[in-house]
């Protein structure tokens, strides 16, 4: 057995060229083969790649989908995002636990099935959902969970439980997924009829500088959430010193409630690859990387094949479209379960085979990115916009949307609404109109931009979705009349606590402290001064944090203090002695009582 482990690891490492930078591919492959990257495996990998064992351990321990302990042959990862909870994931979880006879985070005694929770897997419009190995199961119920377990007990092969494929390319032989695209509204940019590779053809007839100018004239801003002007980013990358440059596509959409890139990757991948190729041409790069989140691994074989087809058509590789000297190819880097890797410098770290820690800025990726070379990292949707801008012209693009935010935005809408799904709408749409469009009535709150965005109430529904008013990377979660906003905020804080990389103090500790105090308030142990405490803690966390995660993670609390203050205030109750019950003497004594082995004689009862 140990010999085979040694041989397999040797083969995997050799396949990756014994390249330390490909460590993610190595550990992903080992995990897949053995259900773990065991201690022994770490030693062997370190030996093969000529690195230190602790470096391997450092990476393995960072990503949620990798583990030193052996997981079951089948891993059920049940999504416990808020939207899944709204859709009854708790009863699904119970059904799985009962049927398997294990709790969350455990593996059956025969080593066959592991059950665990995972944060948002990008299926909020068809929640509750789960990943069973790489396969996505949607619209789960407790009955379905029981059926799945019964089937697994027969053959332990999730592929055999396949029910019916979803629409479009979800039915493609290489995808064979039950996922539904859920495109509810097609707009003029991403989901429009177009000339295949029209943008690329036109780009190749222009000079790279002209391409960048066109993108700048279109005033395109990044669609991932940060909103940095794309043309400017490309200009910096083009101007930076370096023979080798990289184009990276950020397909690690992990913001809870976001699933728009899933649809692009399934249906509009050609537009995406076209945009990346144009990016390569514009900045002077011959190599692109598509960083695909592990949750979307079910699309990996399909995307690989589509890349191969583009190569065969001469749209990737050497002398693209017959243009001598213009070379560009794309490889896919699979992630391993880490929200932080959606942050561009963390994503680069991950591509380099490192922990997904953000990098120090400056230098910015445009100066020193992937393996120290100038790199542009753009969102999936951004690349698609570029291809369309070049095809139709900047003037066409700026006609769409609002003055400060040209173009359309893909919105992933989920939660309490009749028609959850993906909507392509022009920037500048009011929240009110959006809610009408998605069939949401009697709305208490809308979370725009996911938990790192903000909770807004009805008095703000006249506001518009755009960079200058309410920006969003795409997530819109609707909360109906009866939803508990503070409990929801607490759940989102839990998400940030879990997903913080832990590199810097304010994010690593601040989020924990904020969540604790919020939970105290929810438990009726709060006092009015707690709001100032939370406000200040949130400000320290935002100001001090090193990357976008900690700079926005206090938002669920800060935006609810701002927009839903009465929800907090009604929880502050004075007790009979006129004091706020922030201190519970009995629970404070319980530890001491445990050590002493006797009960307090004063605080009895």
């Amino acid at each position, binding site marked *: 057995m140990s010999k085979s482990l040694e041989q397999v690891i040797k083969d995997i490492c050799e396949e990756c060229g014994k390249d330390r930078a490909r460590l993610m591919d190595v550990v992903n492959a080992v995990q897949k083969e053995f259900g773990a990257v065991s201690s022994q495996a770490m030693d062997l990998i370190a030996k093969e790649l000529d690195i*230190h064992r602790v470096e391997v351990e450092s990476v393995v321990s960072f990503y949620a989908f990798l583990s030193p302990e052996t997981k079951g042959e089948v891993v059920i990862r049940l999504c416990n995002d808020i939207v899944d909870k709204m859709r009854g994931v708790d009863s699904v979880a119970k059904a799985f636990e009962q049927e398997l006879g294990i709790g969350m985070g455990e593996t059956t005694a025969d080593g066959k099935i592991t059950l665990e929770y995972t944060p948002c897997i990008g299926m909020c419009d068809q929640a509750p959902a789960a990943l069973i190995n790489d396969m996505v199961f949607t619209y789960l119920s407790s009955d379905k969970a029981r059926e799945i377990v019964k089937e697994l007990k027969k053959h332990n092969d999730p592929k055999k439980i396949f029910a019916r494929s979803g629409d479009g390319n979800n039915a493609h032989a290489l995808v064979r997924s039950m996922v539904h695209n859920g495109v509810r509204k097609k707009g003029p940019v991403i989901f429009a009829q177009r000339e295949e590779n029209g943008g690329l053809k036109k780009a190749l007839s222009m000079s790279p500088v002209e391409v960048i100018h066109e993108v700048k004239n279109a005033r395109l801003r990044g669609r991932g959430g940060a909103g940095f002007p794309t043309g400017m980013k490309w200009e910096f990358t083009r101007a930076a010193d370096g023979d080798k440059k990289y184009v990276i596509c950020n397909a690690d959409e992990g913001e809870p409630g976001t699933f728009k890139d899933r649809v692009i990757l399934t249906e509009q991948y050609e537009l995406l690859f076209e945009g990346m190729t144009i990016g390569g041409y514009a900045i002077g790069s011959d190599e692109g990387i598509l960083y695909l989140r592990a949750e979307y691994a079910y699309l990996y074989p399909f995307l690989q094949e589509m890349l191969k087809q583009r190569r065969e058509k001469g749209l990737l590789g050497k002398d693209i479209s017959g243009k001598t000297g213009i070379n560009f190819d794309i490889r896919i880097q699979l992630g391993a379960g*880490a929200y932080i890797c959606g942050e561009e410098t963390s994503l680069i770290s991950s591509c380099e085979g490192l922990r997904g820690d953000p990098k*120090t800025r*400056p230098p910015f990726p445009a100066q020193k990115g992937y393996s120290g070379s100038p790199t542009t990292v753009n969102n999936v949707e951004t690349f698609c916009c570029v291809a369309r801008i070049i095809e139709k012209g900047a003037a066409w693009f700026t006609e769409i949307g609002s003055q400060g935010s040209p173009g359309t935005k893909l919105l992933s809408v989920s939660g309490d609404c009749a028609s959850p799904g993906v909507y392509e709408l022009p920037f500048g749409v009011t929240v009110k109109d959006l809610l009408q469009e998605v069939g949401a009535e009697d709305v208490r709150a809308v979370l725009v931009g996911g938990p790192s965005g903000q909770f807004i109430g009805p008095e703000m529904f006249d506001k518009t979705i755009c960079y200058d008013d309410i920006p969003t990377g795409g997530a819109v979660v609707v909360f109906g009349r009866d939803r508990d906003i503070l409990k929801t905020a607490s759940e989102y804080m839990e998400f940030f606590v879990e997903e913080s990389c*832990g*590199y810097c*103090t304010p994010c690593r500790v601040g989020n924990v402290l904020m969540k604790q105090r919020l939970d105290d308030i929810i438990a009726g142990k709060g006092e009015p001064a707690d709001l100032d405490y939370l406000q200040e803690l949130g400000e320290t966390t935002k100001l001090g944090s090193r990357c976008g995660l900690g700079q926005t993670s206090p938002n669920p609390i800060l935006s609810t203090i701002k927009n839903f203050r009465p929800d907090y205030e009604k929880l502050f109750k004075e007790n009979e002695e006129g004091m706020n019950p922030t201190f519970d003497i009995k629970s404070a004594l319980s530890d001491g009582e445990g050590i002493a082995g006797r009960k307090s004689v004063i605080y009895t009862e």
Partner: protein
Amino acid sequence: MAEQTITFTIDGVEVKGKAGQTIMQAADEAGVYIPRLCAFKDLTPHGSCRVCVVLVNGRPQASCTQPATEGMVVESETEEIQKHRRNIIDMLFVEGNHFCMFCEKSGNCELQAQAYRLGICAPKYPYQFPVRDLDASHPDIFIDHNRCILCGRCVQASRDLDGKTVFEFVNRGTEKKIAVNAEAKLADTDIDISDKACDVCPVGAIIKKHIGFATPVGRRLYDTEPIGSDIEKKN
């Protein structure tokens, strides 16, 4: 070409630095001390503790990693920034298990010294009391994870100065910790008492055995003057 001089201000005081320097480097040379914990001479700035965050033209930046540029306006010892600094120090105290009264690093500890400099008598945040372990396997050195503040100095010193990579970070978030390059124990690594990595810990997480409490109270590093005084004396 002569080294280009740049001029900027820290809290209204004019500071002259050289192009390519970080704000902290320029400030140190000018005798202006900016509180810090992870930054250490001879090591690449890590930018993780965030104690040295200042406002640069109104935007928060870590002064250990941010390059100084001509004309920038830096705010450091303002009431607002000092408040956030204290909060961050507080966070480090409650996140681990720091018992200064019987820690042998007491008086030589940078975390403790920063707290005193910033006027913290006791943290205002609730103690987390995490359960952390201790590795006393090595005959000369021990690691007490209770006191580790994850500054990364030992990781870098071992890798870049000692050429060994004895330490590296594992896990993430609240579970993040220092691990050693062995299956479990420090004794199984090639660390040596003379390694630079044993000398860089700002707190009492990496401790040399056999010399505990060797310096009497009164002669310890920060007994008479606050941390940063050596830099401020240049002024």
